[in-house]
């Protein structure tokens, strides 16, 4: 009889899957590398450690040297700092801008919602890389410009999500109660709605940061991103691209770095989402 009872019983609280831990440790490891970059770098990333370009890995340069004979590992660690910092700042900008305007549109409705939504439609319809090209051509390549471009371009996506999440909450009675009291938009957005949608917005932040890394790496790859002698991961791939014909691994390492971080961020969000879904199904 007990066997049959187990059959109708619900599964216990789901354990965190290996996927969660693997993706979390990859993201955490890169974040740590970026934070501790000055300590971890074996050499100055602009120092020439070898006379040979694309030297094979040895005891001085663990990953070999780049096209000018600089230590690739040091440049990769330095690139991690630049890449992560820029992507983080751009995503933060996108979330603040898009999130605030999206929630504002959700509670205001009417013409403000209509105008903001149409502007967002326009931004979303533009090809991102082309927009980046045009703006960089106009204002010149700088890290601030890159962050601003990525921030604004990705704010449109955040706006859509925040507006949709906010619109679901905005019709609930506790928002009506706050409106009846005469609360202003600031309290409605940050006091009432935001606490209810922090989790989905955080998931969106992680996904969008992986997009931002790819976007900025792409711009750097076509030479419009971070300028030499500094380089982010996309720039490192570009600098060392000629090594492929020489049989060196130099551009593979930064490419792997980009791929590993972008994939890990996506998998992390998936793993957290799956688990929340499982917990919710159990609670119902």
């Amino acid at each position: 009889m007990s066997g049959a009872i187990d059959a109708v019983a619900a599964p216990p609280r789901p354990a965190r899957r290996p996927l969660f831990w693997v993706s979390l440790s990859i993201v955490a490891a890169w974040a740590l590398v970026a934070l501790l970059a000055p300590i971890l770098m074996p050499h100055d990333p602009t120092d020439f450690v070898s006379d040979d370009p694309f030297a094979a890995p040895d005891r001085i340069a663990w990953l070999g040297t780049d096209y000018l004979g600089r230590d690739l590992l040091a440049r990769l660690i330095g690139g991690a700092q630049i890449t992560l910092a820029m992507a983080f700042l751009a995503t933060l900008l996108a979330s603040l801008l898009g999130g605030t305007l999206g929630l504002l549109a959700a509670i205001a409705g009417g013409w403000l919602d209509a105008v903001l939504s149409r502007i967002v439609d326009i931004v979303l319809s533009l090809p991102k890389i082309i927009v980046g090209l045009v703006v960089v051509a106009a204002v010149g390549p700088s890290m601030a410009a890159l962050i601003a471009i990525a921030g604004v371009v990705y704010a449109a996506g955040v706006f859509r999500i925040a507006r949709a999440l906010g619109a679901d909450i905005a019709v609930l009675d506790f928002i009506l109660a706050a409106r009846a009291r005469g609360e202003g938009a600031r309290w409605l957005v940050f006091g009432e709605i935001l606490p209810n949608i922090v989790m989905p917005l955080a998931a969106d932040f992680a996904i969008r940061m992986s997009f931002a890394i790819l976007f900025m790496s792409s711009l750097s790859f076509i030479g419009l991103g971070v300028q030499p002698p500094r380089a982010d991961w996309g720039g490192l791939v570009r600098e060392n691209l000629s090594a492929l014909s020489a049989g060196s691994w130099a551009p593979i390492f930064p490419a792997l770095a980009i791929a590993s971080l972008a994939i890990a961020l996506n998998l992390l969000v998936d793993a957290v989402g799956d688990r929340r879904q499982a917990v919710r199904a159990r609670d119902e």
Partner: protein
Amino acid sequence: MNDTPVLAVEALVVAPQAGGAPVVDGISLTLAKGEVLALIGESGSGKTTLALSALGRVRPGLAVRGGRVRLGATDVLCAGETVLRDLRGRRATYVAQSAAAAFNPSLRLDFQVTEPSRVHRLRPLAEALAMAHSLYRRLDLPDSRRIGKRFPHEVSGGQLQRFMVAMGLIEGPELVVCDEPTSALDVTTQVEVLKAFKAVIRDGNTAALFVSHDLAVVAQIADRIAVLSRGRVVEQGTTGEILSSPQQPYTQELVAACRRWDRSRRPRPARAGSGPARLEVAGIIAGYGPRNRVTGRPSVLAVNGVTLSVAAREVVAVIGESGSGKSTLAQVIAGLRPPTAGEIRLAGRRLAPDVARRSLEERRRVQMVFQMADTALNPRHTIGRILGRALDFFGRERRSAELLEMVRLPASYARRRPGELSGGEKQRVNLARALAAEPEVLICDEIISALDTVVAAAIVRLVEDLRDRLGLAIVFISHDLATVATLADQLVVMRRGEVVERGSVDQILANPGHPYTRLLLASVPELRIGWLEDAAERAKVATAEPVELPA
């Protein structure tokens, strides 16, 4: 045949998997062929869990810890999925509370009602359709041959609930489990559905488990009643026994809460309408959709020329069915939906139609309590923060504990979040938030509709108490005439956005003038056996008056 019960529950124990108090704690009961057993109790008493176990269903997170449930000769708790699938829809069926949520909106009703026959391959489709159409006729659905070709959104809520019943009964099951099948319906619709349901299960000699929190409804349909509280059957007996001589205190409380318009327990002197009006509402016209360019009226009129006034220490009840515009009226008064015409006066001074244009002081003096206690409190805030914000906003001193005490909640609740409170407790917090502003006018929009009878009665007593202590002028919006009768001084009956009758409660209850009021009065279930049959008669008389009731 009479020796084997249709359903036998033996010492059933169901508990949360994570541990904790059992939801069903050693319940035994039997159900004979053709018998209707009502399970009654407040939310959380385990009545739905018990009823679902008859179908071999245990909700996720719960586990059976002991006992057995037999449907005929089948032990449904030990049966495998194949066996259960075979008996569900054929031998035992389920009628859900919300038909609107239970039907697939994009499939025709005929197709969905005949699903049990199709899934179990019991008969050809033509035969199943013929059976469905005959059921429609017995359930008093209009145009029984063609109505099934419609989609769920093309029939009314009461009709949809009857389709749900048809789906449950199409294969002539031994047992039908009904989970609050009429709770979501208006009173007048409820009477019709109950009547049709009762006739059909009697004809089919079907046994029924009828889950409800409304004793008056149950009294019309059940042969026996089992009263549940905290997972145990506290009292069980025939309907007559339970109604006439309840033994347990809990049952007595339940029966007492159901007594309708017991005007004798009104200790207050007749001072209705005394004193100047605190709130006056005149000629309000409001609605939805784009406005007509010529007349300036919205395309859908929800409130059409409503006038009322409330004095201090007075309760004016606005009564009407869903769609009568009473909630829109509440929002108009609160300034959340500016009307296209009409004016609102607070103590003689005109209020701006839009809440954004009212002064802080004006907003403070008019407070609203919302219907859905679940959604009216921000789930992420603690009770202390919710009350604290309202106090700060209106520049009152921080006295959350005092407010909680005023609505009879312990001060320690300030640290809890809404999710940790019961429905009744949440509604008390809702009231406390409105009281934080120290208002003069309180608008209560259906604040007891979602609550169990006993809990609702306690909230009504609290509102009465607050009115007397704080001298509030209260607009009490409800569809429940029975509750309002004990609380209100004045009654405003609304139908389709218009006031059809107004006057003192005593006068209207004793001598209702409008046929619609008479229909409403006749539709409130009474706590006696045989009321349902009488009600059908009285409704006919009520509507046969000269004033035409458009369908």
